[in-house]
């Protein structure tokens, strides 16, 4: 059964149509990878799934755990279990990183009918995870992403992901700008969340992260549509032949 199903999705940014009838289904517990050239619509797809204000969905449906969430507010999508790790996480001066994360975690727990975490429970879990993924403890008490390096921002996204425990995780170029150590730490976090139920959608230009996070499916996105879906062996073909071999003749 698919966790997330996208049917004939058409979306615009401003007047420009970027997604032109995209179909995609994420299977439960599987790692799906979207690859495609610049401008193919990869980031637009990730934003459309989480309800970004820039994206105007003009047709099609996004079905998440059997519910149509095409027109849902972004926070409802998140509370239902969708998570987007941003390509460029925003810096928010004055919002304390730990306070923000505790607010988010407790919002989700309330939504799920669970008791909120108290300060001690929250801090203990947050510190443990931060240590595991190599996020410096002092960054937990700083303003959200402010002055963080590229790698620290991505580690912070992984921390949020691990604390919020979503059902579907979309990683938009999580590997961009990461050195090898950061890439390993981030991959470690992702692999820890692979529990056979949680689904992943990794959006990437490069196959580098796939050395550490083993994918189940590769999708090629060209000009707003998925043009090819296959197993991990597709990466090898892509490396050899480039995207031009997938262009519609």
């Amino acid at each position, binding site marked *: 059964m698919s966790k997330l199903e996208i049917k004939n999705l058409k979306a615009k940014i401003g007047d420009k149509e970027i997604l032109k009838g995209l179909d995609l289904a994420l299977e439960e517990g599987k790692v799906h990878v979207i690859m495609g050239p610049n401008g193919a619509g990869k980031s637009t797809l990730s934003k459309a799934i*989480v*309800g*970004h*204000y820039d994206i105007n969905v003009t047709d099609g449906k996004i079905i998440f755990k059997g519910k149509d969430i095409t027109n849902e*507010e*972004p*926070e409802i*999508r*998140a*509370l239902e279990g969708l998570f*987007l790790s*941003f390509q460029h*996480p*925003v810096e*928010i*001066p*004055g*919002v*304390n990183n*730990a*306070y*923000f*994360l*505790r*607010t*988010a975690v407790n*919002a*989700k727990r309330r*939504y799920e009918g669970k008791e909120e975490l108290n*300060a*001690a429970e929250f*801090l*203990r879990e947050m*510190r443990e995870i931060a240590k595991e993924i190599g996020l410096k403890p002092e960054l937990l*008490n700083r*303003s959200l992403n402010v002055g963080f390096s590229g790698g620290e921002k991505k580690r912070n996204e992984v921390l*949020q992901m691990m604390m*919020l425990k979503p059902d579907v995780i979309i990683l938009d170029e999580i590997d961009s700008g990461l050195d090898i150590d950061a890439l390993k730490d981030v991959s470690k976090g992702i692999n820890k969340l692979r529990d056979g139920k949680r689904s992943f959608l990794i959006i990437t230009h490069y196959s580098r992260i796939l050395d550490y996070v083993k994918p189940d499916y590769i999708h090629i996105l060209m000009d707003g549509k998925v043009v090819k879906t296959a197993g991990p062996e597709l990466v090898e073909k892509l490396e050899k032949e480039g995207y031009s071999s997938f262009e519609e003749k």
Partner: protein
Amino acid sequence: MRVDILNALDSNGILKECKASSLKKHIANRLYEVKIPTKKSEKYRYFDIEDFTSKDLEVVSTSKDKFKQQGKSLVIEDGEVVSAPEGVEVEIGEFLDVDNDHFDGLYYLNHLLTQNAIILRVKRDISFNIKHIFNKEEVFLNYRVVIFIDANSFVEIYESIEANSKDSQILSGYDIFLSRDANLKFFKNQTLNENSSLPIFTNYFKVDSNATFKYGTFDFAKSSGLNLFKSELHSNSSFNAMHLLFTTSEIKAGTISEIVHLDKSSKSNQMAKNILTNGSRGIFDALIRVTKAAKYTSAHQNSKAILLDSKSYMASKPQLEIYIDELEASHGSTTGQLDENALFYLRSRGINKAEAVKMLILAFANEAIEFVDNKEIANHIYVDFEKAYYGSSDIECIKTCHECEDMILGS
């Protein structure tokens, strides 16, 4: 007394009307030149100054010179000193050494109406509070505080207001003389209750060579009010100002200032942050002047405003007036809504829109409150901000500081 009638008088007439001694003739001369502000005065254009100047109210001024000297607070109730802090010399006496080049007519009026100023002499390192209490109804309350800070002293002052009266007008302010190598931190919490009396504070600061002045004003007001100051900077001195304004009702409030670099290598940095809602008006009219003698100066000024509704308005006018080339200077002003990207990021983590908006507003204010490096004072200000914003304060330790983490975890 209606203060606007003074504009029709010459300096002798002003002296007589203000019942001031002839020793204050130079002050009356200056008021005659500068005039009581009207709605046409550029600096008061966005403030309804005529509400202040056109009412006929009895003038009440400082007279009592007996008070207790104990604890660490200067308490001024309706212009009279009730108690004074230990470790500070306090006298009630005539003060004539005013700034002869102040931009504000009300500064001179305040001096003319003040027969006896509250004069503080600080000769050692000390931290104390100043609390103003306004109780008297329907009066024109006028008093002035003069503070001399000796060389090499390190002084911290926290000022707050308890405004209980409704229909009075308050004209007050400070003349602060910061001697060489002195260091002053002055944090003013100007928050007023709803329908409070209307206060205008008009100040003069002299920052002598190598002295450092850190000046923070915080106003989470439900009533109109203004804070004006002129700050003169001498060689190698530094003036660092932060102004945070958060308004929750249809009022007019803000800062009008002039910072004057008089000598070389002086530094100023002024930042105003404004959050306006419910049809309120924020005012930031601030000039930095760098004179010919002030080479190698650094002068920076910025104003940021967030408007939370379409009826609110920010009158922001940062200005630089520069007469030399050898300096580093900048100024800017932005007025807008909340950052949509930031708002979306928070919502994408499951935080609902209303809560995310609150977090961003608190964050905007936090940046200004973090200017206060004394945690106890910063907490007072934070609590007042939360009360103004949420209607109550519910500070959890994790919101305001993180030193408690180790305590919570027992590690």
